[in-house]
């Protein structure tokens, strides 16, 4: 039998999923031709926000690439737009001609709604719909001081706004309604969300009626009805979508808002089916991915003549903005016959609201803590009677039926048909069943076989818990990377056990923690030495033989075995006396290279090891101490000239930098620690790519951290704003101590911060005064033992053996 010809118009997510199901059910039933207006294959459109934010790359969100389609024998015609459907002749028309079909699937999706105001067609006005939009927005964000106006405070608009802000743009969100995300959130949750966005520097203007977009040959500003104007280099329209139905309309299909289909997804022509956002089913158009995937399944079954029916579904929503937890499901409008349960915890930023009718959940809004979202949603869909647990319902599943506060128990208690992955509509039973049937052991396998956690990823934790429940010991979600080959323990366990067991020497650690080698290796020994120095500053005797050569001889080894010497220049400030002393050392020891470093100091390169103590003695005469340029410890505090000299300076940045350096020098840290203080937001000291940086502003000191400018490049995060120098110092010192106590050896601040979470660090350092003080005090205590200049110690004879050969064998002696 000749294969039937299937033409698919549209290569989006619904179409891709439909083809997947089709090839699974009947790989050889159809010759498939696929038209897509975008010149590329199928990607996960919901993940465009993380791509815009720079958290993911395009490559990571591709779901079906050219190779996949080729493998399935699909004839791909990407970049070719279908302009007409001829239902009588059963063919579709493109610029390149006619393509006949036996069955046609329309998956044209939706088009962004562009509000009809003057200036809407100006260059610089974009929708947020496809990768081209994202690329245009990224390009716009690359310009200095770029400003963006996002029109629309719904899901998409806010994701765009947050992402553009992350890319450094000044962002204003204009929203027509009284509060953000009014379709998903009630006013209170909308308010919390607005506060959160404002704290990230995003301006929110509600009840904003856009009157015109201004500009001559590029967008320049947005004008509102009330006369407000916002300058803009980029305007993102994210006010909604409408089903893309033009070719269906022209073909005379039954179209209302979308293409009208029956439960089998067949349109008013029996040979034409429709799937995705272009569809209208029982007067509803869908824009979230879960129901679209349900449709895709039904279309595939209808095509291979199996029974299937699409039924309207409740949908739940999550906002994909890193650091914001928000979940909403169902209907939460107020009505006389409805009741509500509300939980507010303002200081923790938690808000939960359930709308009930006759003891059944109709709607749920969770902000700040969304772990119970799936549980509420499950009861909502099933119409579970919640009478028995009403009193404690709002506290979540963990508080029900006396079960302990154990997330594993909560997951274990979920019924088999509880939905785990909202994007792909995968329930618990399917995940557990597939793990058992196929013997899956890794998260990637589970993703590949069930699709759970394969779209937005917010259910990954739940899926991992299910894997642990199903596989027991065979699945180790947080497979710990051992420190090195000498132990099976990871850095975190070792640090914890050092404290818990009171281990105070390297041999004690190795003995108690059952090291597999007699005396460790070059990886674990320096790490252990650091942990012990940090945890027992007064008791631990530093083991020099476990330090890397640079820290052992307090200079930097070079490729030819000579050393470089960098004296400390507090805050990068020097004097004629110091410069003269350096010049004299250079002459006296024939130093081959003198170089200014990136940290505002002077580096003397090419010094023989034996000369080091003499070089240090001369430098010490001029008052120099070691710059610790070799240390996993405090390096430099770079400064600008600040208010003393600069016409823009707002504070004495030089003075603060010197003060920080004098306070903190000599401290050992997990990895090198570089700082800078800039006197104004012009940021001449480049504080925003440092481990810790300060930007002085009129109102005080903005403390930054977790920047990087090395193997990785990363702008800093803001810790918070403080008013005085004293506070700035206290916060910086406390942050450093928290890092010292928690990070893994060689882990820079930005990596540690990513691991423990910026919010947690802000909570402990900014919000918890007691904790901050405790960190500060512990740092001060450890400095009592750390602030000894290693150079002068060695000039006066310490470690003499390090610098002299043990013996010199003369030629005559050797030849005897």
């Amino acid at each position: 039998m000749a294969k039937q010809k299937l033409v698919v118009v549209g290569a989006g997510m619904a179409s891709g999923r439909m083809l997947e199901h089709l090839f699974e059910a009947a790989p050889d039933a159809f010759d498939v031709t696929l038209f897509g207006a975008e010149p590329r294959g199928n990607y996960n459109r919901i993940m465009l926000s993380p791509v815009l934010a720079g958290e993911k790359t395009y490559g990571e969100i591709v779901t079906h690439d050219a190779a996949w389609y080729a493998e399935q024998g699909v004839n791909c015609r990407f970049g070719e737009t279908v302009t007409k459907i001829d239902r009588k002749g059963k063919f579709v028309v493109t610029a390149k001609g006619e393509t006949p079909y036996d069955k046609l699937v329309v998956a044209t999706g939706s088009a962004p709604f562009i509000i009809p105001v003057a200036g809407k067609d100006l260059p610089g006005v974009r929708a947020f719909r496809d990768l081209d939009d994202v690329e245009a927005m990224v390009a716009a964000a690359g310009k200095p001081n770029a400003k963006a106006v996002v029109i629309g405070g719904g899901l998409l608009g806010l994701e765009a706004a947050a992402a553009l802000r992350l890319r450094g743009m000044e962002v204003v969100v204009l929203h027509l309604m009284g509060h953000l995300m009014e379709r998903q959130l009630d006013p209170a949750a909308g308010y919390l969300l607005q506060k959160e966005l404002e704290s990230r520097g995003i301006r929110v203007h509600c009840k904003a009626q856009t009157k015109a977009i201004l500009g001559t040959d590029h967008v320049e500003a947005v004008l509102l009805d009330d006369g407000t104007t916002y300058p803009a280099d980029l305007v993102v329209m994210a006010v909604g979508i409408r089903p893309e139905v033009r070719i269906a309309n022209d073909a005379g299909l039954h179209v209302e808002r979308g293409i009208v289909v029956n439960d089998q997804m067949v349109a008013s022509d029996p040979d034409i089916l429709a799937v995705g956002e272009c569809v209208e089913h029982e007067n509803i158009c869908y824009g979230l991915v879960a129901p679209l995937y349900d449709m895709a399944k039904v279309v595939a079954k209808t095509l291979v003549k199996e029974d299937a029916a699409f039924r309207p579904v409740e949908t739940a929503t999550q906002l994909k903005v890193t650091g914001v937890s928000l979940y909403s499901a169902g209907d939460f409008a107020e009505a006389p016959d409805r009741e509500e349960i509300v939980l507010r915890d303002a200081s923790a930023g938690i808000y939960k609201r359930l709308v009930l009718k006759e003891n059944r959940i109709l709607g749920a809004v969770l902000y700040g803590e969304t772990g119970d979202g799936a549980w509420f949603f499950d009861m909502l869909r099933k119409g579970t009677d919640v009478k028995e647990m009403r009193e404690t319902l709002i506290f979540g599943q963990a508080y029900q039926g006396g079960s302990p506060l154990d997330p594993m128990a909560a997951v274990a208690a979920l019924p088999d048909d509880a939905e785990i992955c909202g994007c792909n509509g995968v329930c618990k039973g399917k995940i557990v069943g597939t793990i058992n049937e196929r013997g899956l052991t890794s998260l990637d396998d589970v993703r590949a076989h069930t699709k759970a956690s394969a779209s937005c990823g917010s259910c990954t934790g739940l899926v991992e818990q299910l894997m642990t429940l199903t596989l027991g010991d065979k699945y180790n979600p947080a497979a710990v990377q051992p420190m090195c080959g000498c132990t099976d323990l990871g850095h975190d366990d070792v640090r914890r056990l050092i404290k818990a067991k009171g281990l105070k020497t390297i041999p004690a650690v190795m003995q108690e923690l059952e090291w597999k080698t007699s005396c460790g290796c070059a990886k674990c020994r320096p790490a252990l030495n650091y942990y012990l120095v940090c945890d027992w500053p007064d008791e631990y005797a530093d083991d020099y033989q476990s330090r890397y050569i640079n820290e052992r001889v307090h200079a930097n080894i070079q490729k030819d075995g000579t050393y470089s010497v960098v004296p400390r220049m507090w805050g990068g400030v020097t004097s004629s006396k110091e410069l003269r002393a350096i010049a004299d050392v250079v002459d006296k020891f024939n130093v081959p290279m003198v170089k200014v470093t990136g940290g505002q100091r002077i580096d003397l390169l090419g010094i023989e090891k034996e000369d080091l103590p003499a070089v240090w003695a001369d430098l010490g005469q001029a008052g120099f101490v070691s710059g610790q340029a070799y240390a996993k410890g405090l390096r430099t505090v770079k400064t600008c000239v600040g208010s003393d000299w600069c016409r823009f300076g707002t504070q004495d940045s030089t003075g603060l930098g010197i003060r920080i350096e004098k306070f903190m020098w000599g401290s050992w840290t997990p990895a090198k620690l570089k700082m800078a203080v800039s006197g104004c937001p012009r940021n001449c000291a480049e504080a925003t790519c440092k481990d810790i940086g300060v930007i002085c502003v009129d109102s005080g000191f903005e403390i930054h951290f977790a920047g990087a400018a090395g193997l990785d490049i990363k702008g800093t995060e803001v810790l918070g704003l403080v008013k005085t120098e004293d506070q700035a110092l206290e916060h910086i010192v406390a942050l450093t101590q928290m890092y010292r106590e928690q990070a893994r050896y060689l882990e820079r601040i930005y990596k540690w911060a990513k691991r423990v979470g910026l919010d947690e660090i802000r909570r402990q350092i900014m919000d918890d005064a007691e904790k901050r003080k405790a960190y500060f005090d512990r740092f001060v205590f450890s400095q009592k033992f750390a602030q000894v200049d290693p150079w002068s110690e060695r000039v006066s004879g310490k470690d003499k053996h390090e610098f002299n050969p043990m013996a010199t064998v003369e030629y005559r002696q050797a030849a005897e």
Partner: protein
Amino acid sequence: MNWIEIGTLSDIPLRGARCVKTPQGKIAVFRTAENDVFAIEDHCPHKGGPLSQGIVHGRAVTCPLHNWVISLESGKALGADEGEVRTIPVKNEGGKLFIALERLMLAAAE
């Protein structure tokens, strides 16, 4: 063997090394945690790094330049790296240390 006295065991820190300068270049003399003494050329087979400056662990040293691990007994690179450095005979007589330079001299005369 032409044994030359170079010092005492206590001159070298535990799990440490010292250098001996000779007409043929530097020799690194190591003392392990078990008080065993080894001597090898102070020259990593990889890029010539000074092995005497590395971290000593077990009967091996990790070069400070690029972390090659060299066996003190055989002079051979351990792990995935390939290379070898000359070993020097060394003996410990009641805490006094001696090295033999004959082989080195012979090599130089070749």
